[in-house]
């Protein structure tokens, strides 16, 4: 194995984790915000 390949693997892993993790966090934030807004609207319609 060539010298310092571990740093290259770490760099590409960090990149994938940062971009993938942020994407997943945005998808989760969007889902949660929509669910909360729908729930508030639904409660108001019912009262």
């Amino acid at each position, binding site marked *: 194995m060539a010298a*310092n390949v571990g740093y290259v693997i770490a*760099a590409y892993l*960090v*990149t994938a984790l940062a971009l993938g993790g*942020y*994407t997943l966090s945005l998808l989760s*934030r969007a889902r949660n915000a929509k669910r909360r807004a729908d729930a*508030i609207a639904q409660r108001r319609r019912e009262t």
Partner: protein
Amino acid sequence: MAATAERALGKATSRNGERTLGVASLVALAISALLSLVVAPPDAVQGEVQRIMYVHVPAAWLAYLSFFVVFGASIAYLRTKKTRWDRVAAASAEIGVLFTALAIALGMLWGKPVWGTWWTWDPRLTTTAVLLLIYIGYLAVRRITDNPSRRATWAAVVGIVGFIDVPIVHLSVVWWRSLHQGPTVFRLGAPEIQGTMLLALLGGVAAFTITYAYLMTLRLRVGRLEEREAREALSPIVEVER
């Protein structure tokens, strides 16, 4: 021009546009990884570790682009007072912070084997750390007040003033003696880089730019939904106050 930008934004942020950009960014990142890790040759001096450049440089360029968008959207907000521009600036600032932190982390992973240290107070590194702090500050300013119009105005001022650091970061390797290498591609004269390496680098910049566009559409949707949530939560209070 602002109207054209608004129309383009509307098209890109539709759910179909979002999905298309998501697939395009995945494909572009896969091609970029192939070019960087398989097609491009190892560096004659640094060997394999130089391959970190193909993610480090695009991350740094995308940080510049993100903060340029914050700058433009902040000016547009102050001129038009349209919430949409504030939403664009907030989204781009958050993504810019991600890319700046990523560029710093990748630089550290490259610096350790090449310079023998994870971090040094070199002009490029220091000004980049300041850039990260400025835009973390920008995001903090957005949390100071709940008044949407005051929040947008304060943030726009920070977004415009903070952008001053971007050209300082870029030119720091020219203005001051630096351990960091100087410009090799975006410089006067021909690029000082081998053809296949240049292709892999430009492929990385293109893939990261498409990913930025995808993240922007997602983050803008989050912004719209969070605003709707706040409106729904506040509407009974607003009705009572009326």
